[in-house]
């Protein structure tokens, strides 16, 4: 019997990986939607971000004047992506249920990268939508003016920032697999992002050593780019920020993936896979 030509084999391999990726995405999606009534899910998608945005924007207005409303609004609306990108993704990777089935996945020839990244897909989508909703609220409340904004540029910025935050989430999720103390980790990171990303306090006002942390985290560049785009900047003017944000995201993704493979090897070596 003749074996298929190499190009067909490649296509088959690709197709299998696509399927793996989608399966992970679908499972994540169902985990998110399956047990929640749609009405309640939407309510928490709207009320929680709205609460945070309103609190910090009002506080910012009180502290520095109404003219700065858009500073705080944009910062917090963008930071909201972390609720999916961090919380959602870390639970998807580090969640007990998935860890229980990991043992079976690791015994299979399935492509690890496809499995790993598939889980984050739906949360990237979710995060993107949440940011848009946050911005919409800000616009409705008169805290931001989009008249000089290039929508595509803003959309791209949000997408990249959401991606890089989710990449950090993937890394943290892997840490969660090892240490199993996810709630501590993801709450800490979420709040650190609130503090260091420039969402509420300009990075330049932070002490020097804190600024290093800011620039090493996702969202910082994205938030700055978003603010510039809303004040009328052209996408080429924020290109280096966006490239930086993308690079940070890729870096977290790479480290996270390495950690994931390391986890698999360690677990098989030490025989701790069934511990989950």
């Amino acid at each position, binding site marked *: 019997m003749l074996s298929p030509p190499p190009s067909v084999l490649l296509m088959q391999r690709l197709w299998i990986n696509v399927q793996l990726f989608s399966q992970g995405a679908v499972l994540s999606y169902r985990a998110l*939607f*399956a047990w929640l*009534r*749609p009405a309640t899910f939407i309510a928490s998608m709207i009320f929680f971000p709205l609460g945070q945005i309103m609190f910090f924007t009002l506080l910012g207005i009180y502290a520095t004047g109404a003219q700065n409303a858009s500073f705080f609004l944009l910062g917090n609306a963008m930071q909201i992506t972390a609720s999916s990108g961090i919380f959602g993704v870390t639970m998807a990777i580090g969640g007990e249920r998935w860890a229980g089935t990991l043992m079976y996945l690791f015994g299979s020839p399935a492509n690890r990268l496809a499995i790993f990244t598939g889980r984050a897909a739906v949360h990237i989508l979710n995060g993107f939508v949440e940011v848009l909703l946050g911005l919409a609220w800000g616009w409705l409340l008169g805290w931001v003016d989009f008249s000089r904004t290039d929508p595509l540029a803003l959309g791209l910025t949000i997408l990249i920032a959401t991606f890089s935050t989710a990449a950090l989430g993937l890394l943290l999720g892997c840490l969660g697999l090892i240490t199993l103390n996810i709630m501590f980790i993801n709450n800490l990171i979420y709040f650190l992002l609130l503090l260091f990303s420039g969402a509420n306090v300009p990075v330049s006002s932070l002490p020097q050593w804190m600024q290093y942390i800011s620039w090493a985290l996702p969202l910082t560049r994205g938030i700055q780019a978003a603010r510039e785009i809303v004040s009328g900047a052209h996408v080429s003017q924020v290109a280096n920020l966006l490239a930086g944000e993308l690079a940070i995201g890729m870096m977290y993704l790479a480290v996270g993936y390495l950690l994931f493979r390391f986890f698999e090897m360690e677990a098989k070596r030490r025989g701790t896979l069934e511990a989950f």
Partner: protein
Amino acid sequence: MNAAVQVSNLRRVYKSHIGAFRRKVKEVEAVKGISFEVEPGELFGVLGPNGAGKTTTVKMLTTLLIPTSGTATILGYDVVKQADAIRPRIGFIFGGERGLYWRLSGLDNLKYFSALYQIDPAISKQRIPRLLELVGLADRANEKVEGYSRGMKQRLHIARTLLNDPEVLFLDEPSIGLDPVAAREIRQVVRDLREQNKTILLTTHYMFEADELCRRIAVINHGAIIALDTPANLKRFARDLAVVEFQVNRVTPQTVERLKGLPFVDAVSVEEREQNSLVIVQSPRGSEAVPDLMAQLNGSAIQKVSVREPTLEDAYVRLVNQADETEDG
């Protein structure tokens, strides 16, 4: 003497919702109007398969669940209207891995529950060590529960349930999931409790456990009691069913069907083993049926024939089959 536990037409319907968008309501009648009484100091068994309604019944009697209809009293107090009077006087175990505080030690768990049971500290100070001795956990009492084996957790549950020195105990499947040694230990504890004249209601799906421990047994299936009697009487119910066992080389499904079709055969079951098969035939004719049965088995090499007395399990199978036939037919 008044019954310790009195149940009259107790019924419980569960409603569940299906689907995320269009929510449909599904109703399941878990307990279909059962009635029975437990005498003071009696060890009463409720025997049935999973999903029969045993746990639901116990939850209603321990005031955790409100019946859909019917009444029940414990020591004369109504389970719905006088729940507060019942709670200090009963103990219950649903057992298993849950129900204990994992981050605390066994001893701390008992101290906590003691306080919640309003037990005088002077009394609990003496009682707790005694209970730990009773269940064999005295030397592991200071370890966190998360490190306990399943059997140890079960024993801690028993200690917990005895903290308030209850008059009536409800043990729901106390030996489930335990290895044989641990299970035997639990049964010994239950026997010891029986000696102390406590009223005990025990649910189980292990036939031999019910046979060994209980004075009377209620057989429950699909939410209804299909028989209530002492183990001996229940077995007598199936006494006319002697059992003939043929150890054969192999047996074909057609042979089994032919056997089932014989007028004097009530039930046939087959146990497949590595080297041979065991054909178990229930027939009122007992050993007299052997020649006719052997004729049907011609084709399968017969290695051994034995006739045995029916066990509680045989009686149970027959009861359940009859109940199912009445339901269907």
